[in-house]
């Protein structure tokens, strides 16, 4: 336990000191939100209150930035001798990844709070009950956790920080092809098919429904996607990390 806590402390400290990371995972989502609300928002007439509409999308976008930074942090560690040092010590070196994932979730919690706070200043008035808030945040948490384990696994196999960041770009792209920023009904039919069947959409739809107090139409789809991803991503990361010692 001391080992895990020590390595969590390390990752959190390293995150805090990495200015690029702080900007990328916290300042950027807030700027993105301002951009969507003030620049594109006026043009989107298909929804009643655009700021209410877009916040869940930005929150999911945040997870993409967070995930990408996790992959980079892990790849960076793997490329240096630090992980070798941990692996030559009588500890469970896998806790290095646990540290990065925990720091990633923590960064995301900060980013989420920053985005929600900024949204409130921009006129975000969700009619959600406290229970709905808890459910929405809980869903995001599971989603972020799953995504972070997935990207941590990717960071282990990525040969360089650069290729790890490619994965982040992919994660960043997905929300744009979803209902995050504009209703799916405004898209051409072929894109609508893609958008309705990718994992990010149910998560956004569910968070949005919870926050705006409308019925959750996608049911268990979002928690099932996120939970399923977690169930696959965690053992995958463990396996990939163990595998490097076979080389």
């Amino acid at each position: 336990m001391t080992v895990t806590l020590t390595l969590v402390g390390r990752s959190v400290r390293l995150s805090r000191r990495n200015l690029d990371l702080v900007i990328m995972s916290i300042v950027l989502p807030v700027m993105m939100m301002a951009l969507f609300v003030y620049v594109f928002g006026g043009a989107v007439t298909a929804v009643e209150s655009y700021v209410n509409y877009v916040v869940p999308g930005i929150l999911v976008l945040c997870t993409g930035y967070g995930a990408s930074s996790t992959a980079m942090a892990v790849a960076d560690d793997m490329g240096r001798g630090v992980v070798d040092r941990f692996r030559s010590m009588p500890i469970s070196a896998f806790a290095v990844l646990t540290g990065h994932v925990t720091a990633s979730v923590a960064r995301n919690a900060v980013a989420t709070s920053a985005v929600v706070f900024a949204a409130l200043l921009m006129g975000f008035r969700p009619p959600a009950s406290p229970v709905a808030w808890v459910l929405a945040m809980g869903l995001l948490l599971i989603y972020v956790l799953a995504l972070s384990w997935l990207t941590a696994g990717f960071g282990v196999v990525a040969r360089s920080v650069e290729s790890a960041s490619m994965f982040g770009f992919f994660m960043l792209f997905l929300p744009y092809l979803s209902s995050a920023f504009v209703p799916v009904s405004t898209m051409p039919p072929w894109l609508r098919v893609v958008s309705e069947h990718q994992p990010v959409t149910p998560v956004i739809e569910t968070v949005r429904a919870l926050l705006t107090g409308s019925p959750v139409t996608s049911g268990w789809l979002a928690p099932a996607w996120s939970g399923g991803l977690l169930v696959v991503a965690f053992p995958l990361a463990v396996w990939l990390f163990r595998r490097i010692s076979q080389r």
Partner: protein
Amino acid sequence: MIVETAGLTKRYGENTVLSGLDLKVAEGSVLALLGPNGAGKTTTIRILSTLTRPDEGSARIAGFDVVRSPAAVRGVISLTGQYAAVDEEQTGRENLLMIARLRRFRRSAARVRTSELLERFQLPDVADRRVRTYSGGLRRRLDLAMSLVARPRLLFLDEPTTGLDPVSRTTMWDAVGDLVREGVTIFLTTQYLEEADRLADRIVVLDNGNVVADGTADALKNSVGGARLDLTFPSCEDAARAHVLVGGVTDGPTVSVPSDGSATHLHRVLDDLLTAGVRPDRVSTHRPTLDDVFTTLTGAAA
């Protein structure tokens, strides 16, 4: 024997990096693994410190098999790899504290141990600066300090002084000397023959994954022959005349004569030359160095 390997073999694809390495290291001794770039030094250390698996053969550290009981092996060893394994964005003190906590020191004990090590490696002045701002020598010292947080029985040092200036190198050697006195077994690799000469009880020369020599520094030096006398003359003609008188080999204005290194031999050679009226400008005796051993054994260009 704290290290015992038998037929250790490692391949990367077609490339056989180690072919049947047999090594034995006695507890409390210092072994230097010497070899040109790509000889397989780092690979050997990585296998012995449980980071890489051998393809064939076995290795035991303090009686524990590196493949079957890696956890037990890790309890015995400490590793200072070829490239400093430190967190750039943490301070020196934070790096040490982190390792102490990972080594399961209690919080207060970890602080005490950290201060001791900072003191011992002359790092207190920079302890609270981020490692990013450290020079290569400071970084290397911190790296070694981190390997010594929990006192290991066996310490691996992969090229501990590569890239260090002579002062930092001497500091590092002193630190290694202290460890040896404390009874720590040292397994080091190096490109510097002087380093092996100075630190090691035993030297193993590795070339292309094979052991090409194994012995004490003196034994290795004797294996490539005795001392020689270099006589330099004002002109090549003089050198040619001297060559006829005293033998040896000529290289431009210089004649090299095999010698036992004694004053008597030097005296006799000079007498012969002066009697014949050939006066050398300069005389130097040359004892074989590990460089000669290295060049002879590995066929590397001098």
